[in-house]
């Protein structure tokens, strides 16, 4: 499942929502990305995340489907936020559900790598006196 949203998310609730559907899940791997307060020696106050939503849903759905086949996943979840976010806010959640840990860990890493490299999101960082697109 892919969710592109402004709102925050609760890790345990999101994982349990999927976990409760299946009794044969033995491993869940998760990655959470946060807004940090420093980047290339500049103090970050906040960020703004822009998304090409239709393309993000299509490309992330495709990568999750590939991962499902490659690592025999039972299910997967990607939540990516957009809009204005402050330091310590959660940006993204990737969760993968499998029978065994190797599959869930490898699939989670693969999806995160794809997301960082190709998913159409852009960050603008706001500093004390100026701002910059990354």
């Amino acid at each position: 499942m892919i969710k592109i949203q402004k709102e925050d998310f609760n890790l345990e609730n999101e994982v349990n929502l999927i976990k409760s559907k299946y009794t044969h899940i033995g491993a869940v791997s998760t990655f959470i990305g946060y807004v940090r307060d420093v980047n290339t020696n500049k103090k970050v106050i906040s960020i703004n995340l822009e998304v090409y939503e239709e393309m993000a849903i299509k490309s992330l759905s495709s990568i999750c489907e590939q991962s499902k086949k490659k690592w025999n996943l039972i299910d997967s979840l990607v939540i990516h936020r957009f809009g204005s976010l402050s330091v310590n806010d959660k940006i993204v959640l990737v969760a993968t559900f499998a029978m065994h840990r190797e599959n869930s860990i490898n699939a989670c890493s693969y999806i995160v790598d794809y997301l960082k490299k190709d998913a159409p999101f852009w960050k603008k960082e706001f500093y004390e006196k100026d701002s910059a697109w990354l």
Partner: protein
Amino acid sequence: MKIKYFAWIKNITNTDSEEISNKNIVDIESLKIYLCKKYPKLENHILKDQIIRISVNLEYTSDNIILTNKDEIAFFPPVSGG
């Protein structure tokens, strides 16, 4: 065809999307030339350093594919999500 712009590219075009209909635009290369004439500041990024990525109908492309009026083409800088 519908053209979309994201991140700092919008600062150059002053819009995030527009409809363009021009008989000279038949493929990606002719669209790039058209846009660089319309927005001269795009030229450095689209034609010279080529850092801008392009999608057609929600799929990345680096080929000079043929375009039709029903296509949606997006121009954007390298992504930085996650």
